[in-house]
């Protein structure tokens, strides 16, 4: 006897489990209706408005799918479809500006995305030509110094919080201070660093290191939070296994806990760098602007990409298009640097991720 023989014959009425499904054709009809409704909103003004079209379409789709599903499928499925539609719509609404932003920066930035831009400075340039070589160097030096300072501070604080101070009053106090610090407006960090260096080295001091200190203030709490989370994710069983072998605590942390969490820690550090590399306000007050390359972060002004972008846009020179093009190219360069950083972090975390750890 085969399996099919045992199957009950399909009854004449529609089966209860296939009844009332919306089905693909009706779903497509709802989508098409929403799109057309969006197009109709162009008619009164006669001009194409993409943003309004997208929003009207998404809202119409949410309403349409709910009503259609409510009629055909019933309350539970209708609510399910409505929620899915709302979540997807929110995602699309967030993604469109992002794509548009990257596209605009790439499009306008490509006007001056040439060799001269990456090899020359602004020394002696008033009109066309000139480049952001000095600004790229400045950004790399200032951000690099900030990273060198904030990673040890941040990582050691995180180790204290996750491994030693757990549950103590001091740890709780540090944790809430770190939370407060993540919310500090960047200009406050800049003014702090400016005031600090003015006290130490006299009024009007501008230097790369002052900017690095300002960025460190912004970066450290981000590093602390992410590294602490990553250390906490390391299973206690691994710590216990190491303790049971007679390994001292500091060595358990250095040789077992940190290597296990290293992929996440690196990702956190890169996120923190990405957070500060585009900071303009604190660098404006602490580092200032220079026309040429300054390799020495301890002496004199430097230019960084965000500040360069700002000045090229507000003081573009003559003709103004030349300065504006340089500003867009600098912004594009910044976006590319951040993307490269993320790619490096992604590669590093895949390479360093412990095999087999779920």
């Amino acid at each position, binding site marked *: 006897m085969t399996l099919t023989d045992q199957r009950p014959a399909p009854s004449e009425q529609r089966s209860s489990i296939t009844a009332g499904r919306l089905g693909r054709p009706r779903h497509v009809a709802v989508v098409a209706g929403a799109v057309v409704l969006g197009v109709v909103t162009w008619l009164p003004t006669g001009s194409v408005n993409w943003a309004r079209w997208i929003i009207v379409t998404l809202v119409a789709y949410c309403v349409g799918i709910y009503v259609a599903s409510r009629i055909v499928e019933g309350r539970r499925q209708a609510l399910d479809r409505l929620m899915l539609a709302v979540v997807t719509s929110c995602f699309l609404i967030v993604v469109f500006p992002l794509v548009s932003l990257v596209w605009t920066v790439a499009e306008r930035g490509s006007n001056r995305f040439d060799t001269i831009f990456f090899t020359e400075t602004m020394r002696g340039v008033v009109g066309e030509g000139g480049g952001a070589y000095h600004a790229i160097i400045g950004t790399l030096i200032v951000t690099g110094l900030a990273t060198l300072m904030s990673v040890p501070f941040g990582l050691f604080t995180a180790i204290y919080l996750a491994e030693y101070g757990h549950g103590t009053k001091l740890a709780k106090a540090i944790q809430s201070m770190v939370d407060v610090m993540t919310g500090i407006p960047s200009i406050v960090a800049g003014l702090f660093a400016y005031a600090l260096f003015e006290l130490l080295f006299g009024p009007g001091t501008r230097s790369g290191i002052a900017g690095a200190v300002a960025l460190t203030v912004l970066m450290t709490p981000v590093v602390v939070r992410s590294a602490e989370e990553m250390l906490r994710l390391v299973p206690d069983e691994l710590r216990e*296994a190491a303790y049971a072998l*007679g390994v001292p605590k500091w060595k358990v942390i250095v040789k077992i806990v940190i290597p296990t969490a290293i992929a996440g820690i690196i990702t956190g550090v890169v996120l923190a760098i990405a957070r500060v590399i585009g900071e303009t306000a604190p660098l404006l007050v602490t580092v200032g602007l220079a026309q040429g390359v300054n390799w020495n972060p301890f002496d004199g002004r430097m230019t960084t990409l965000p500040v360069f972008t700002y000045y090229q846009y507000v003081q573009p020179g003559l003709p103004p298009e030349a300065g504006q093009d340089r500003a867009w190219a600098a912004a594009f360069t910044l976006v590319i640097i951040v993307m490269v950083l993320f790619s490096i972090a992604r590669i590093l975390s895949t390479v360093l991720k412990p095999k087999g*750890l779920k």
Partner: protein
Amino acid sequence: MTMFDQQAAIRSTGEELPDMTNRLDTPTDTGAMVSPTARPTGPDNRIVVENLNIYYSEFLAVQDVNMVIEPRSVTALIGPSGCGKSTFIRSLNRMHEVIDGAHVKGSVYVDGEDLYGPGVDPVAVRRKVGMVFQRPNPFPTMSIAENVLAGKRLNSKRIAKTDAEDLVEASLRGANLWNEVKDRLDRPGSSLSGGQQQRLCIARAIAVEPEILLMDEPCSALDPISTLAIEQLMNELKSSYTIVIVTHNMQQAGRVSDRTAFFSIDGTGMPGHVIEMDDTDVMFSNPKQQATIDYVTGRFG
């Protein structure tokens, strides 16, 4: 798998290897057996526990344990969940205190030295008293060989390459794992199956040459075949080590141990305590306490 199936499976696999069950008849006469990891027998490593009370902060978890654990034998700790077996075994190598607020009162003597005496370094205690945990926990960042060497390497002892290779082989042979992994020693430890991982953890524990080996439910996450491998291993290891094992499986306690201690608890929130301790065959055939009879015959709770 139900409890019954599991027990039946273990029983049936046990019957295929009669030599293992026979060993129970000659509990301490294992001098003729030569284990690959056998080391010169030094002090007798008898563990004497006196008036041990174990706390989590203010909560008394285990009350007033007095116990003598014989050297070079297997001692099983049985009892219902939450009765403090694991807490007790963790206090034998000062692993208990790695939990915030956990502490003990009383004494644990090994070779006449009190592990909780003043000036005792818990790290030194743990080098002497190794431990294998319930869930296999090989270090995910290390290869199989590095896992075995972890104890030595992390204790900052530089070891020559040939010595390291010898130690890896001896420890893995000691844990009955060498033949399965000898061709892939540089693969990550977590690439092994659960049973192999647990034997890797045993190899890692015996590589630091402890005198005492504590096992906290080492087989509870393993299938019957892997369980059998580890039980055989315990029988071999007891010629060189004093072994204490916590188990929920009374058949297992019966198969592997020479002495058995029964822990119990009067109610939730009450401290656990030792009801009875005796030779394993006495505990399972003719125990003195009614509570023990109820537990080993399955009438308990």
